[in-house]
């Protein structure tokens, strides 16, 4: 049943978008001003309201012609971290006006990360160095329909950042020797990569029939919570001609979410609850076992 769902969603989405374009609200006049999003909002279908593109990060100005159509959706509107969450792969799919190539960038919410470095002291390995970085994305993944270097070489590089480019804008906190800083920055990438948060490989966007595209977004098991941003670009001759951004909430759900929220917001009450639970289970368990 499960693998069928994305396909079903894709079909539904396509049917909806086809009927929508058949009604013709999108046949905008040629002189329409350039727009960041596809007309009619980022995602004209799908059961969930979608916020407009991040106004703080406007993509490059589209070409002289009207903005080509770009519609995207995800197989699921959010990543739900349950207590049994082992990571998951989300299918992102959509449609665009050919010709063009597709680049998808998924970025997790930025935060301050502290990198700890181990050193051997008296034979024992312990953390001796630490360096904090600001504005580190929790997660970063790029997928493209063509090798990225080829696509970015022709001018879209300022807008679409590869992981290396993105991390070069990460600010270090405090003063440190340049070489040492590079070492810590490499350490940051190393740890993130190990946890699957900065996938090393560029994802493959596959294009079908010249205008349908799909890509798998891999999310590892230890995924930080927050609102992620999924940006999709259409590139034509190395220039961005259309872009759509949509938020992807990642959060804990169910019992584990309630517990985590409780532990975070009211630790004292959580502690009392934990003690009460232990007293009850311990008392009952002891009584039951002795009866046997």
């Amino acid at each position, binding site marked *: 049943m499960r693998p069928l769902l994305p396909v079903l969603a894709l079909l539904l989405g396509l049917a909806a978008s086809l009927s929508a374009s058949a009604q013709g609200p999108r046949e905008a006049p040629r002189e329409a001003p350039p727009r960041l999003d596809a007309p009619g909002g980022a995602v004209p279908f799908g059961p969930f309201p979608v916020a407009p593109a991040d106004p703080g990060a406007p993509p490059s100005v589209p070409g002289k012609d009207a903005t080509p159509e770009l519609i995207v959706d995800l197989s699921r509107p959010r990543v739900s971290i349950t207590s049994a969450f082992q990571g998951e792969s989300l299918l992102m799919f959509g449609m665009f006006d050919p010709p063009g190539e597709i680049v998808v960038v998924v970025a997790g919410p930025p935060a301050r990360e*502290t990198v700890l470095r181990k050193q051997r002291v008296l034979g024992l*390995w312990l953390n001796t160095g630490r360096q904090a970085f600001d504005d580190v994305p929790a997660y970063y993944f790029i997928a493209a329909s063509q090798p990225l270097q080829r696509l970015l070489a022709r001018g879209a590089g300022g807008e679409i950042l590869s992981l290396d480019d993105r991390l070069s804008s990460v600010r270090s906190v405090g003063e440190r020797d340049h070489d040492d800083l590079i070492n810590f920055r490499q350490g940051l990438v190393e740890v993130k990569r190990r946890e699957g948060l900065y996938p090393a490989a560029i994802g493959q966007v596959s294009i079908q029939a010249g205008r349908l595209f799909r890509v798998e977004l891999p999310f590892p098991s230890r995924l930080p919570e927050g609102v992620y941003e999924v940006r999709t670009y259409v590139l034509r001759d190395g220039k961005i001609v259309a872009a759509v951004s949509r938020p992807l909430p990642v959060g804990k759900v169910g019992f584990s979410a309630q517990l985590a929220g409780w532990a975070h917001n009211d630790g004292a009450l959580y502690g009392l609850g934990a003690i009460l639970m232990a007293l009850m289970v311990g008392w009952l368990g002891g009584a039951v076992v002795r009866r046997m």
Partner: protein
Amino acid sequence: MNVFVLLGLGGAAGLLAGMFGVGGGFLATPLLIFVGIPPAVAVASQANQVVANSISSLQVAWRRGNVDLRMGLVLLLGGMIGSSAGVSVFTWLKRIGQIDFVIAVLYVVMLSTIGLLMLAESLRTWFRRRRNPEAPRGKLHTHTIVHRLPLKLRFYKSKLYISALLPIGIGFVIGLLSAILGVGGGFVLVPAMIYILGMPTAVVIGTSNFQILFVAANVTFLQAATNGTVDVVLALLLILGGVVGAPIGSRLAAKLPGVALRGLMSILILVVAAELLTELLRTPSSLFSLGIREVMP
């Protein structure tokens, strides 16, 4: 983390605890660390498990009247101060990013000490029994500085007239251990009560469980409130495993001779200590790790 792995772990710890008559916390925590639970979380959740463990033991002792309440309360006074101080130290170590290292080092020191002492004791008993089955035990209770301390209190149930500073000091040390290592501390407390305080063996188990219950509850509360390191689900799995494992362990133990049992236990403890030490000595696969992630406003 797989639920069944944790349940099995709780069961194994409970089995060992039942077999050897100890709380099992000092073996469960290293095992949790080996399966990949962050040491800080393992320790705090283990303290939560100790609450369940001690109430279940206290139940019996209380009914039989084997609790010296006065002694328990004096021990507890030290225990509360010690555990509160311990959680503060824990918080500070966590902030400077050294908590995992300190936990591992303290466990290596503690486990190898206990393991070696137990091994020596069981070997001695083994050989002595073979040579002379009626070797008398030396009296360790001597009248020294212990009886000259001020603040003397009369403990009727324990038939003792000693300074309150002594149990307070012992309680303080146990509280520290409990906060930083997540153990109940019974394996230190019980010998201390018998040999240092000179309490009658009958009331030792009940009284130690009385103090451990409240100290572990205090640690659980403070860890949850200040560090957020208590994982209730993890603790519950450990408790359930222990509830099932402990009676099986004690039934198994009844079928084995005591000396062999203690010898086995000491070897097990030493193996765990050696494994923890190797982790500290081995060149790590990655020199880097991440501290706490702070979301920016």
